Every structure is written in structure tokens, then in C-alpha cells.
């Protein structure tokens, strides 16, 4: 490549060596987030490392431990139709299919979205409910971070200088589970006012698995594992649902923005979550 400061590596090792050599270097994948930030003059990288020829990052494959590994460069349009995401894990496809518009879904990548971490983005909410992990490469080697520790604060992740996201790891879905991803937006394609992801399984009348994540209502996705656990083994009646949605609303920390007020979001969370859990129950009952 002719342009000074532009690099076009083909392997993860090359990428992390380039990142280690220069703190200012930025990776560019689909460009949907980074180039928009550059156009807004929010970032002005002196070096760009293009990931477009790094084949390892384009794969979707099942690892030896049974987890599904979605390469960082896999585009939203391909996550939306990935057959490998079954049962409750389909929430990741549902979330991908609701990101922005068809053109952005053709450009944007899962690694780019997760690394940018707009708190109103769709993937973090779904990945939080899935209990996914982020695999990261650097000159020191590879490591895996659960999403609960990866998403830290507004636009802040556990990524350190020199890090490259290599893949998103999704555990096998609970047996017989179903997944619901709901996003409330003013118009199709806008960022959500609030999003909710639910993964649920039942054995007979008793809940055997429940994960509920709320997005767009604070610096990072909200999950309350203890409140979820309290519902396991029960029949998930109206009282149990109301208890959980109340706690989620209390735990949220939304802000006022152009899409909605914080107070509106607080009111919205119980309704969105209750609706999603209700739909999950219907799906499980109908065997769909």
C-alpha cells in the first residue's frame, strides 16, 4: 500500500505487532463506527491497521469446548442469518437483524461494534444475556474476558492499548431454550430507546434457565443474576415477573437524551421485560 501510515496485514500476529509498535495505531474493520468518528473529528489516527485481509477473523466455528466462536470481522448481515445460532442463542441473530439499516449491516462487524461499545448498541445486550466471552489477542498472547467484565462504563471496555478482539465466544444454548430480543425505537433503524434480551427454558411448569438483560438504560447492560436465580424452579407467575422487572428498573441508570427521558425509560423497562418473558413462555408452550 502506498499511503504512509496504512497497513494491510494478513495475520493476527502481524496486527498485534503493529499495534504494539505504536499506541496511536487504530484497527479499521467495516468502518461503520471508526470512520464515522473520524468524520466527526473525534478521532484522528496517525496509523491505520486494516483488518480486511485477516482471514482468521472472518470465521464462525465451534471450538473444542463446544462454544461457538464468531470472528471479529463477521458482519451483522451474516450474524443475522447464522444457522449455528440455535434455540435461545438466536437472540444474537435477532439483535443483528435490528442494527441500523441493510447497508450498515453489510459493512459493520461484530468485533467493531463490541469494541466501540455504544451503550445503545444491540450486541452488548444480547451478549450479556448469552453470558458470552470476548477473546482478545495482544503481543502477550490471548485471553478471554466474560462480557460482564468486558463492558465497563459509557464507551469504555476492558480493552487495553495493543489489544485486538479476535472473536466473540457464545456458550451452547440451554437445552430446549427460547430467546426473545425486543428493541423499542422511534423509527426502524434508529438506536433503541431501550432493548431487552431474554433466554428462557422450562421443564414442565418450572423454569430451568432464565437470563434477562436490559440495554440502553445505563452505562452498560443490566443483568441481575441473583434475581434471575430466585425464579429458577418456580412457575414464573405474574408476581415473580413483577418482582424481577421492578428490580431491573430500580437497578437501571438511564439518562435523558433525544430519544427519550430517563423517567420514561424507567417506566418502559418493566413493560418491555414482562412482555418479552411472556412471549418466551408462549414460545416454549407452543414448542417454537
Amino acid at each position: 500500500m502506498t499511503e504512509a501510515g496504512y497497513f494491510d496485514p494478513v495475520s493476527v500476529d502481524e496486527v498485534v505487532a503493529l499495534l504494539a509498535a505504536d499506541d496511536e495505531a487504530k484497527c479499521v474493520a467495516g468502518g461503520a463506527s471508526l470512520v464515522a468518528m473520524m468524520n466527526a473529528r473525534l478521532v484522528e489516527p496517525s496509523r491505520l491497521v486494516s483488518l480486511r485481509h485477516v482471514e482468521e477473523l472472518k470465521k464462525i466455528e465451534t471450538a473444542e469446548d463446544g462454544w461457538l466462536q464468531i470472528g471479529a470481522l463477521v458482519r451483522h448481515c451474516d450474524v443475522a442469518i447464522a444457522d449455528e445460532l440455535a434455540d435461545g442463542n438466536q437472540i444474537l441473530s435477532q439483535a443483528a437483524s435490528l442494527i441500523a439499516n441493510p447497508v450498515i449491516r453489510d459493512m459493520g462487524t461484530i468485533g467493531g461494534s463490541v469494541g466501540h461499545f455504544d451503550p445503545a448498541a444491540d450486541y452488548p445486550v444480547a451478549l450479556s444475556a448469552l453470558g458470552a466471552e470476548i477473546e482478545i489477542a495482544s503481543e502477550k498472547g490471548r485471553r478471554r474476558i466474560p462480557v460482564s467484565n468486558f463492558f465497563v462504563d459509557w464507551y469504555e471496555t476492558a480493552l487495553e492499548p495493543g489489544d485486538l478482539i479476535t472473536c466473540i465466544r457464545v456458550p451452547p444454548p440451554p437445552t430446549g431454550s427460547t430467546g426473545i430480543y425486543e428493541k423499542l425505537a422511534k423509527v426502524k433503524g434508529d438506536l433503541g430507546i431501550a432493548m431487552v434480551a431474554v433466554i428462557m427454558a422450562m421443564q414442565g411448569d418450572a423454569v430451568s434457565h432464565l437470563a434477562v438483560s436490559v440495554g440502553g438504560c445505563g452505562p452498560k447492560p443490566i443483568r441481575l443474576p441473583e434475581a434471575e436465580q430466585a425464579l429458577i424452579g418456580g412457575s414464573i407467575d405474574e408476581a415473580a415477573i413483577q418482582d424481577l422487572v421492578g428490580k431491573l428498573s430500580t437497578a437501571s441508570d438511564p439518562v435523558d437524551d433525544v430519544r427519550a427521558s430517563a423517567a420514561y425509560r424507567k417506566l418502559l423497562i418493566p413493560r418491555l421485560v414482562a412482555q418479552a418473558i411472556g412471549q418466551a413462555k408462549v414460545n416454549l408452550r407452543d414448542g417454537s
Partner: protein
Amino acid sequence: MGETISLNLNGEVREAKAGLTTTLLEVIRDQLGLTGAKKGCNQGVCGACTVSIDGKLARACLSLAVNSVGREITTNEGLTEDGEPSALQQSFIDNGAVQCGFCTSGMIVSSHALLQDIPNPSIDEVRDGLSGNVCRCSGYRKIIDAVRGVARG
């Protein structure tokens, strides 16, 4: 500014100067004189700069010029047939689907891709396919008519 790059644009090899942060949109409009694609939001939201890169729709404003080398880039200008408007472009004219015209190129490039996937789209399918293209004149009805008009032949 920047160094010389060579782009495959509408079937021709074109040379341009590009710095690290120069977008494909800036190159095709400001240097290569193809002004169909417009700079609207410059954030990938409005769709006025939509082009096709390697057969897939893309925002020229979010595509770095240096990252576009070696790829087939098609703009609205490249969709003409022997210098004449294509059936789709003519349908936009015949249906009065152009008001101020700012969104038109992006609408046509997106519609062209839609019709390749779905030759006879329903109204809802056209709406979905063009959901990433904003018309601030709000002239959507005639745009939908234009796309479905050419589909019916």
C-alpha cells in the same frame, strides 16, 4: 494531500490522491467529478452517498479510500446503460420520484441492489430495502412507485 491510489470505478481504472483519513466519497466527488453520491450526514445514517463495493451496498462516507483499492466500485453514474438512463433510472424520472434530488442517487443504487435480490418486491419489501435511505422531502410514495414500476416492467 496523500499519495496516489488507483480505484476501479464504474468499470474504469481511476487515479486519485488519498490521505489516511480521506473517504471514498471525498475522492469520487471532489477529485473524480462524480457528484451523484452526496455528502449528507457523513455518518452513515442518511444514505445519500450509497454506492456498491464488490457487489454489496456501502456508504462511501464510511469507506476509506485507501481501503477501497482493488475493489469494484459502482455509483449511480455507473448504472447507466450506453450513456442512457437504465430502466430503473428512467422509472424514477417517469414517476416523478425526484423532488430536491439530494437522496436520488443513493435511492437508485439501493433500489438497484434490492431489485437484484427481489425482482418483484412488495411495498413492504421496498420500504425495508430502502430503510437506510432518507428523503427529507418525504417523497417516499413516488420512490416506491418508481421501484415497483420498473419491477413490473
